[in-house]
């Protein structure tokens, strides 16, 4: 499987890009010990106009490169944590619904639909506005709007797996239902969940950026969305302030999508869109 993944050029590019972003995020405090908010030079300096400020300065004379590096930390953190939380909600709920069926299934799915009928972004805005924007509330809001598809996916997988012969065999061997679910069924649904999770991280990063862009970001956390939102009013005079964080978002989301597709192809060789290795 790893071999198949490795031979997928797109996926490897994704891994390389994401690794770069992660490294930059990790070493940001070493590169820019002054932090992302430090005012280092005159405001509105264009890229490459002053040594040491390759990406220029923003409206307050802060280093755009430092902001990008620190923004990567926030974006990745929010993306990963909110996806984890969404999985923690979605996987158990979907598994129970798919495995037990009947009233459990009915109840769980109606509950899921309740969330699915409200547009994701609108719900996220409302949640953040109610809780006051902090990193924690933003992460939670993103998790809350993104778990329903997970639940539905896991339910469908579990429903198809639980009718397989090895599950019947396990039942005949006298295993209890919870044990069958956890030890036999769930492990067989992991691959689509992993693929989905990688794409969810990308969506979460976009959601966080959109919220910050609208001014609903954590005012104490430097994120890419915040940078674009703050640059919106000066977009006609200082293009670089919105351009670079925009590129950063595109690269990260693209990388995650490439990896997701690569994983998908690797897990499902029959469905592989690319030619065989």
């Amino acid at each position, binding site marked *: 499987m790893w071999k198949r993944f490795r031979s997928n050029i797109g996926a490897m590019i994704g891994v390389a890009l994401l690794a770069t972003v992660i490294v930059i995020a990790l070493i940001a405090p070493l590169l820019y010990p002054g932090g992302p908010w*430090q*005012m280092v030079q005159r*405001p509105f300096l264009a890229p490459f106009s002053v040594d040491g400020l390759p990406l220029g300065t923003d409206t307050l004379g802060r280093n755009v490169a430092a902001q990008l590096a620190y923004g990567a930390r926030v974006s990745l953190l929010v993306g990963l944590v909110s996806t984890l939380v969404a999985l923690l909600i979605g996987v158990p709920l979907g598994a129970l619904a798919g495995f037990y069926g009947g009233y459990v299934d009915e109840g769980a799915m109606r509950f899921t639909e309740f969330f699915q009928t409200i547009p994701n972004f609108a719900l996220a805005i409302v949640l953040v506005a109610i809780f006051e924007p902090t990193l924690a509330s933003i992460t939670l809001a993103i998790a809350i709007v993104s778990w329903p598809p997970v639940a539905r996916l896991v339910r469908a997988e579990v429903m198809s797996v639980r009718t397989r012969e090895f599950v019947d065999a396990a039942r005949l061997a006298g295993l209890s239902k919870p044990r069958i679910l956890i030890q036999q069924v769930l492990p067989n649904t992991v691959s689509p969940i992993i693929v989905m999770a990688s794409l969810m991280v990308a969506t979460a990063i976009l959601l966080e950026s959109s919220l910050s862009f609208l001014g609903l970001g954590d*005012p104490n956390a430097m994120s890419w969305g915040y940078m674009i939102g703050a640059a919106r*009013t*000066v977009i006609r005079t200082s293009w670089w302030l919105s351009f670079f964080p925009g590129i950063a978002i595109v690269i990260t989301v693209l990388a995650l999508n490439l990896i997701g597709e690569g994983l998908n192809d690797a897990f499902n060789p029959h469905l592989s869109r690319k030619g065989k290795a």
Partner: protein
Amino acid sequence: MKNYLKATTFLIAAALAAPLAAQQAGGRLDIVVQPEPPGLVLGLVQNGPTQLVAGDIYESLLRYDTDLKPMPGLAKSWEISDDGLTYTFKLQEGVKWHDGEAFSADDVVFSADVFLRETHARLRASLAHVESITAPDPLTVVFQLKQPFGPFINAFETGTMPIMPKHIYEGTDFANNPANAKPIGTGPFKFDEWVKGSHIHLVKNEDYYVDGLPYLDEVYYRVIPDAAARAVAFETGEVSVLPGGSVENWDIPRLAKMDGVCVTEKGWEFFAPHAWMWLNNREGPTSNQKFRQAVMYAMDREFMKDVVWNGFGKVATGPVSSRTNYYSDDVTMYNHDPEKAKALLAEMGYDGEPVRILPLPYGETWQRWAEAVRQNLSEVGINVEIDSTDVAGWNEKTSQWDYDMAFTYLYQYGDPALGVSRNYTADRIKKGSPWNNVEGYENPELDKKWAAAAVMVTPEERAAAYAEIQKEIVDDVPVAWMQELTFPTIYRCDVKDLVTTGIGVNDGPRNTWIEK
């Protein structure tokens, strides 16, 4: 060089003294109003946009030049008795309301004594010093005071004492009078129509009592909700005037550089908007005087002015704006001095307890300002977080005293007794109100001095009293004074005589003409 400067000064003086080029009558002026006013009856609503539009419809007895010297308005002359107790106004002759009724001294008495006493809180405070208001004849009004009250001469500005028509409002429920839909005043322009969300249209008052005025045929106040769209409307020539605060500060230099565009910082002298941060004097680190002084030394306010406000305005030295009467600069100056700030923090034993900053929810500029303050304070070791906020949240947090440092700005109305002392005296502490003494500063000694200074008879006495107060209060740092704000007015240069008084565009169009 010096001679050259002298010569230039002389030329400018000569140019000013020479009769102005003949004003040309006619034309239409489009002005941005932001946000859309909640109403136009100036006696009932006095917020910024209302004053901007209704300042053309309504008038008061006096107008004020950019040095706050009174000029004739509805009163053509006035006299203050030597004991400072009797104010006598002679009114203009031949003044008519927009519906054709004659204006008289009775309207003034009705407005000040009945209508505005009920509806206008700020004027009511000044009227508390007034014993009686009478009209001995149709062209004379006399205000008799209980005790001398120097600032009273500043109370006759349009937004402070708009004269309302007695024949329409007497004996009615003022707020629900059906005539409010079509405001009737004595001003140079008459109300024509208001298309909500689009524009307010005013037309020339043909019967205006000053011959030849106004020059313009009509004025449109245009409602454009988005700042970028307002800038575009100005660039395309759709509007010719952007009153202060219409566009983001960063956009001003770009617009100002365009051909045929003029910018002026004048026209805010009467209001003298003064920005500061309330420092919560009740609890937390901000209740310590040394901490508050450290905050002042930690901030690079010159930098903030230059960068956040694009160089517009002036760093504040204390509670009184340099544009307001009785300003004194004989006070402790808090220059940017991080070392001194650190020393003060060490002296008080600051333990790193975090403080929160609440920005004003009025757009990018205020958010950036809070970020700059946070950065400066964290550089001297103060732990700072910015609270996120919206208008409702700001009102709630400040009025319930749930903040450590909160940005605000307030008008000064030309006199410390009208617009300054209210922010520092203990009797103006009121939970539930986001105005006045929100910081909770209590200093009984100074309270007495503020009260005494307000009712002194001669300007010299008052100046000395206020100088003493300023010296003392600046050492106490009840709030962190930030900046005297100016909101530059941007306009097409062919619009002449737009800003001629201390209230700027609010009564601008009266004298404005367009060069063809």
